[in-house]
């Protein structure tokens, strides 16, 4: 294995050349064998990264043909239905990309699909990180970067589908301008500055273009780089399992296994996006026609990730106030759904790791992931937020739903106005109960082993259900749970009667801590587990001799004598027969 090919000789010489100049071998020596833990859910972030690379790549190609200009031209391309129609250069060039550049439509559709996948993958990746507690110390910064990436991802998507200047994209911009205009005090001026005057103007597409192809991707690229560097230095979290501790990483080395798997996965994501881009139409701008400020098509739908905002706009009651005397207008009906609600969502999202750390008073580093059931309050809060988001999202599709299910739009809106307030707390309660139920089940398993479903009658007449001892892996996974105790209530004054000045803050912290950790099914002690598993092993040992009755008659007799319930007899007899056969 020590033979060196000519290629390797060149490679080695290059490595030496580079090393003498930048000292790269120090990095390589530490990192070529770097261990990465393996779990399917760790691929979600990879999908986000790879689809972002595809967005960048296809986007660079699109810039070669796209003309971000609102100057009017007459269409004269291959798409017959629009021949001779007056339109902006932006729309004209987007049509040319779709019909007259070979592979252009493929690039456009790959760009759009990979953008949709990028944002979806970021969202699901964020769920994984949230529900497993991967955002805890030392990874709070990476969580914040992730929230930033999601925000910029939404902006990138919105600015992108606003560029082709088709009827749908123009309608989206019209709505965006309406929102800007609703901002108190500066809104009207801000809208005029952004659009160089009234809507639609002639400048906005070229301004948006710079934002879409340089500013936002630059920011995303910078944040992605820091995100990955932090993942690299802090090492990836891992799920609990045998041999896995808070102080180690168990998995595969970078070279060759992780590199082959991650590199291969990049090509899989890329390949699938290319297939989807070739086979599934997305954003058929030629059907919508060029943008005109006095036209619209019914069933106007934004891309999926803007749906929650559109739903919020649709669901909001029509409140507006005018300050008497000065005549200033406050459009609550736009401000609340379009700015306040997203503002609250993203602020809470960003602050969550810090809130949880404060409430728990936990200062340790966490490299072992939580199972969602073991953090019932966090899991319930997450599900509550998701249910709120999903309901808003349903609101964004209310017209489609109304048509598809023959419902009245008005009743859908009223349904949402009520459920947006009622459902999230319900989801919270149900999720937390479910988590506690699962914890109880885990405890049972640790104390008694798992139920094998086999009923035995012992020689002295006692019936038992055979419990089997858990596997090493199951025990390791279940016992990795950490039982937090709520923080104690503060004293109003110390023993000398000096008033506690920080009483209020401490009380709030105590109450939140009660809220977080007041409900919990404590993990059994090591001795209890030992006893429980021993008991299960004992059960299994009792059952073992059964299998020695190889003579079918004996078994039937034995069981015929034991089991009184006919249904149960059947089941158990069948099971035994199956066991015999195998």
């Amino acid at each position: 294995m020590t033979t060196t090919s000519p290629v390797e000789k060149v490679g080695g010489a290059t490595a030496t050349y580079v090393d003498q100049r930048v000292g790269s071998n120090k990095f390589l020596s530490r990192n070529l064998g770097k261990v990465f833990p393996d779990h399917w859910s760790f691929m979600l972030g990879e999908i986000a990264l790879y689809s972002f690379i595809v967005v960048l790549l296809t986007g660079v190609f699109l810039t070669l043909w796209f003309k971000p200009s609102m100057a009017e031209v007459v269409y004269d391309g291959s798409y017959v239905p629009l021949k001779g129609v007056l339109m902006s250069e932006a729309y004209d060039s987007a049509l040319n990309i779709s019909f007259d550049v070979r592979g252009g439509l493929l690039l456009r559709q790959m760009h759009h699909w990979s953008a949709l996948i990028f944002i979806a993958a970021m969202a699901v990746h964020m769920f994984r990180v949230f529900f497993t507690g991967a955002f805890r110390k030392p990874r709070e910064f990476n969580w914040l970067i992730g929230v930033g990436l999601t925000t910029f991802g939404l902006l990138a998507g919105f600015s992108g589908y606003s560029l082709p200047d088709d009827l749908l994209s123009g309608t989206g911009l019209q709505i965006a301008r309406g929102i800007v205009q609703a901002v108190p005090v500066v809104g009207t001026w801000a809208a005029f500055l952004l659009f160089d005057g009234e809507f639609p103007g002639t400048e906005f597409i070229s301004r948006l273009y710079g934002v879409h192809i340089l500013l936002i991707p630059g920011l995303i690229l910078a944040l992605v780089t820091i995100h990955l560097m932090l993942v690299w230095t802090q090492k990836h979290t891992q799920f609990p399992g045998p041999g896995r501790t808070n102080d180690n990483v168990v998995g595969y080395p970078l070279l060759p296994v992780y590199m082959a798997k991650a590199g291969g996965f990049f090509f899989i994501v890329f390949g699938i996006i290319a297939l989807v881009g070739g086979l599934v139409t997305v954003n058929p701008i030629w059907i919508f026609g060029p943008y005109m400020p006095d036209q619209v098509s019914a069933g106007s739908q934004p891309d999926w990730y803007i749906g929650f905002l559109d739903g919020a706009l649709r669901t909001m009651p029509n409140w507006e106030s005018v300050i008497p005397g000065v005549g200033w207008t406050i459009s609550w009906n736009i401000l609340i759904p379009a700015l306040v609600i997203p503002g609250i969502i993203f602020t809470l999202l960003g602050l969550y790791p810090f809130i949880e750390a404060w409430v728990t008073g936990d200062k340790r580093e966490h490299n072992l992931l939580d199972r969602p059931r073991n953090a019932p309050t966090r899991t319930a809060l997450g599900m509550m937020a998701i249910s709120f988001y999903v309901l808003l999202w349903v609101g964004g599709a209310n017209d489609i739903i109304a048509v598809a299910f023959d419902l009245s739009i008005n009743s859908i809106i009223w349904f949402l106005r009520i459920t947006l307030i009622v459902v999230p707390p319900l989801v919270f309660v149900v999720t937390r109960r479910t988590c506690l139920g699962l914890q109880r089940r885990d405890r049972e398993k640790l104390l008694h082993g798992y139920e094998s479903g086999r009923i035995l009658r012992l020689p002295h007449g006692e019936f038992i259900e055979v419990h089997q001892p858990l596997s090493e892996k199951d025990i390791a996974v279940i016992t990795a749970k950490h039982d937090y105790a709520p923080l104690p209530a503060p004293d109003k004054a110390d023993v000398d009667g000096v008033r506690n000045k920080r009483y209020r803050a401490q009380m709030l912290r105590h109450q939140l801590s009660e809220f977080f950790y007041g409900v919990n099914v404590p993990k059994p002690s090591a001795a209890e587990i030992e006893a429980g598993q021993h008991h299960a092993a004992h059960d299994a040992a009792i059952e073992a001799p059964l299998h020695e009755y190889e003579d079918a008659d004996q078994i039937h007799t034995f069981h015929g004598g034991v089991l009184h319930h006919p249904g149960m007899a059947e089941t158990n007899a069948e099971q035994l027969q199956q066991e015999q056969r195998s």
Partner: protein
Amino acid sequence: MSDLTTPQGNPDGHGSAPAKLGYSPVADIPHKPRATDTDPKAARRAERQVASMFLLSMLFVVLFVVAYVAIDKTSVVYIPVMGEVGASNVALGFTMGMAILLIGTAAIQWAKKLMPDVEVVQQRHDMVSPKRATLEAEANYERGKEESGFVRFRLIRRTLIGAMVLFPIPLVVMLRDLWTPTEYTEGKSPADLLSTTLWTGGMRIVADGTYQGEHSETDSGGEITGEPVSPDDSLAHRPIRPEDLPVGGLIAAIPLDLPEVEHAEGNLNARGKAAIILVRMEPDEIRSQQGTGWDVEGILAYSKICTHVGCPIALYEQRTHHLLCPCHQSTFDLADSGNVVFGPAARRMPQLPIGVDEEGYLVALSDFEEPVGPSFWERG
């Protein structure tokens, strides 16, 4: 390569080679050898599978180039499920997708079947820096603070802060000219511009004959119908007489001047404010309107731009006289002053007072009496 595979043969995890590499195998995870570990035939089969995928990938690249050259960009094929699709796009997407995908599947198969599948362990270290490094950093900071005199020279410190706060101001000030008024907007404030439209007393109303596109076919559906009556060609860009519009009908219309103004201004801004719809109902069906006598024989003119966030409104239900915005479903009752009956819009639809000129054509009596389109701070 041999060093890296050592852990497999090193179940106790204390071998010298893996320790040097920074990781050791996990002793207590039972490892079941794969067929490719024990059976050389299976290993060779896996090798052939991986190599075939790489080969196929190359083949698809060739097919891509062939498709790029051979398939006409306008040719259409019928594919079951997908229907009529552009042949070039499907062929290029399929071949390129397969070429890339096969590289990925080959690499994964290689990793899963032929590379070691024994998990290894590496130690972590807390992120916190060693105490000594922190002390050194602190000492360096103190030295810098002392040597710069940042604390001693109070005047320097304060003027520095002032300069740092002020220097971005030019960058912000320059943004003012993001909006440069034209000869048409010179001297007018944003609020003025948003409050006026092209309509003036005596301005004729003409049917809008701009391109409607294929999208109009999606305009109807579900309970709310009311396909906007697209002006027939004979009406496009022509002034409208009351008798052109039947009871229950709707026409999208614009001021007579609009095309000229658009041409002169070089933008579509005037259209975004002046677009209206004309609807006709039996005069006794009109319960109220925004001004007395603003209709002509049951013909009412309303702004087409939604007062919520500005979408053009297209869906009209003849039976109820409700006008529904397709964007956020604000609903206005045109038989009752255009008042909001449902949805997020707070303001009624502005009505345009109309009459008939001496030649019998519909004209505006004045501009709108309230601003059209979405609310804004100064609107009042």
